């Protein structure tokens, strides 16, 4: 027998993100064709939806197909405002980092529709377990920008007392769980929180968040097996923005099967959704949240999007991906797509758009001024070093009191 030598496979980025920025390999589903199943459908009956791409907005900005009727015009305008505000906030904070007022920042540019659209499907009391790129969950609720900025600046009004890296917010009142920074750990915690809600006969649901790269972590799979076994009210979100710092989604296993299809082995229903289509995001989120609330168990949603910005202010994407990648990304820009849709149905205009952006810029500039009035990482006041010893335990044990004294407090 003539046996060929073995060869070792190392995945390359999707052809759509190669040096030539060739998008021909990306499959776009026809919005009219992708069905919207009944809310109580069995996972086994919708396996196809893990390979399709649920969309509402067609190439001309029309809302079409079975997922199209979920939003009112007011909801859409407020979604557009939330996305614009998120983008403007990110821009402003990036500038502040460049001005060395803080150490680090992470934008969600290009992904705004996912967090903003998802939040619109939740109710007060529900709990998100976010990653570091879901600031839209807070901004869509009009959570005070000054509060977020003080966290990023680690100043004296930072409710986290300067302990956390910038953007690692916590806002219990807004249903926003403290961000860990260790990847995937919170995915399984969201499942546990949802189990607790079900055990107590509550009506609140949880939302777990993860990036496609971190689905390789064991906690992702632990979360899915617990969600499968106990059927708790949790939506399992996977934001596939194509990149884990410099590593393409194919290295997380995205070339063999979609991330949505990971759910099939666990018998969990899965949807794969155009994450740059605000209407599709809202519709899919409502479907999954309703399933959870009606005690029908968990749903995994892969949100297909594109990380238009660098991973963080410490990252330089020009080293690993072509400059024009985002411009040729076939799902476009979420803000432009919703703007075009609203304009097309006569509910928005260029003039209103320009005016709204100006208003938001002004609001953000005002908030930035106020936040900096409470100090920045490098100047002005911040929390006392004595506070470093608080909250390690509920009450301070003697050895920490001794160490605090050693520091001089």
């Amino acid at each position, binding site marked *: 027998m003539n046996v060929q030598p073995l060869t070792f496979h190392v995945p390359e980025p999707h052809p759509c993100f190669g040096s030539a920025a060739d998008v021909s390999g990306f499959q776009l589903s026809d919005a009219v064709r992708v069905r919207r199943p009944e809310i109580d459908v069995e996972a086994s009956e919708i396996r196809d939806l893990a390979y399709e791409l649920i969309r509402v907005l067609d190439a001309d900005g029309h809302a079409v197909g079975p997922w199209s009727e979920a939003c009112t015009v007011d909801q859409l305008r407020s979604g557009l405002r939330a996305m614009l505000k998120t983008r403007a906030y990110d821009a402003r904070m990036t500038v502040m980092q460049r001005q060395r007022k803080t150490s680090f920042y992470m934008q969600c540019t290009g992904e705004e529709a996912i967090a903003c659209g998802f939040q619109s499907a939740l109710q007060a009391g529900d709990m998100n377990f976010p990653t570091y790129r879901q600031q839209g969950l807070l901004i869509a609720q009009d959570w005070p920008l000054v509060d977020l900025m003080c966290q990023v600046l680690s100043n004296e009004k930072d*409710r986290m007392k300067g302990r956390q890296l910038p953007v690692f917010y916590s806002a219990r009142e807004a249903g926003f769980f403290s961000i860990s920074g260790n990847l995937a750990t919170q995915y*399984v915690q969201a499942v546990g929180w949802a189990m607790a*809600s079900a055990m107590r006969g509550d009506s609140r649901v949880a939302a777990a968040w993860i990036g496609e790269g971190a689905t390789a972590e064991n906690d992702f799979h632990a*979360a899915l097996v617990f969600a499968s076994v106990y059927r708790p009210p949790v939506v399992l979100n996977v934001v596939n923005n194509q990149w884990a710092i410099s590593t393409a989604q194919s290295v997380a296993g995205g070339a063999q099967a979609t991330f949505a299809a990971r759910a099939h082995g666990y018998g969990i229903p899965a949807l794969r959704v155009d994450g740059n289509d605000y209407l599709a995001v809202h519709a899919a989120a409502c479907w999954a949240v309703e399933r959870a609330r009606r005690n029908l168990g968990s749903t995994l949603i892969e949100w297909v999007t594109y990380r238009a910005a660098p991973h963080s202010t410490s990252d330089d994407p020009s080293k690993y991906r072509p400059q024009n990648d985002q411009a040729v990304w076939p799902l476009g820009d979420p803000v432009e797509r919703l703007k075009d849709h609203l304009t097309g149905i006569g509910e928005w205009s260029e003039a209103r758009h320009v005016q709204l952006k100006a208003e938001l810029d002004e609001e953000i500039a005002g908030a930035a001024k106020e936040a900096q009035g409470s100090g920045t990482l490098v100047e002005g006041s911040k929390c006392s070093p004595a506070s470093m010893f608080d909250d*390690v335990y509920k009450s301070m044990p003697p050895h920490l009191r001794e160490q605090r004294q050693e520091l001089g407090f």
Partner: protein
Amino acid sequence: MPSLTMIEAIRDAMDVMMARDDRVVTFGQDVGRFGGVFRCTDGLQGKYGSSRCFDTPISESGIVGIAVGMGAYGLRPVAEIQFADYMYPAYDQIVSEAARLRYRSAGEFSAPIVVRMPCGGGIFGAQTHSQSPEALFTHVAGLKTVIPSNPHDAKGLLIAAIEDDDPVVFLEPKRIYNGPFDGHHDRPVVPWSKHELSETPQGHYTVPIGEAVVRREGAEVSILAYGTMVHVAEAARREVGIDAEIIDLRSLIPLDVDTIVQSVIKTGRCMIVHEATRTSGFGAELSALIQEKCFYHLEAPVVRVTGWDTPYPHAQEWDYFPGPDRVGRALIRLMES
């Protein structure tokens, strides 16, 4: 007062707390229908229902991960890791999540969870069923780590741990589940019913976390021990006829420094006994602490008698285990130095 084994005392603590507080739930591998491989949760599912005592998939990370989520929701979960040797997949959830949640959210969220795990050797469990990983927890800011040596303390400490607002790692020396083992493995097993500390009050009581206890007063040397080694130390002291003071630490973090320091200042000599490997073990911390606080009262160097820096072997278990002969010989040397 009824005489209970460690297993019965641990079960009784959960029973008392599940009856008092409907936020208390317990789960883990084989914990529900079967009642645990060591029977610590036997009968709890029948009494409180399968939503409060249930089996989980074999995923330690998942078990502690859901406990953190439940704790953040407002429950009081008691998670069982079947053997401490299996806790490593959960280490990230314990160290990076449970231990730091209160701190990183400045008190907005917390993880008031208990992670129970049987530890220690002496049961021919070899390297995967014998480990004592306490130092891997005591090194972590935000965790409390406790380890009882008898049924009375086991019940009181477990109730205190469930009521504690911080995450508590509750280590259960499995060799003393059914009797107070003194290290003489070739002698008949002694049941807990023959030991006064098996007498366990009914209903609710606590042994405060952070308080050591002097098990035996003595004048010549202080022996610091916890778990199984409290019994080994007592046997060794008796057999070599040295008037040692034996301190059962019970709680490693927070540590009862005052009780330790008072004793060492009084005796001028100190021996630390633990079953875990020596290098960077909890004994190293104790030794440093005594050097800092008691140096000018010491008449001899602090001595550690511990497991060797090897994995826990199977056939050579009793050569690894720091039994009463080794402790006794070290005591004699310490008194001569």
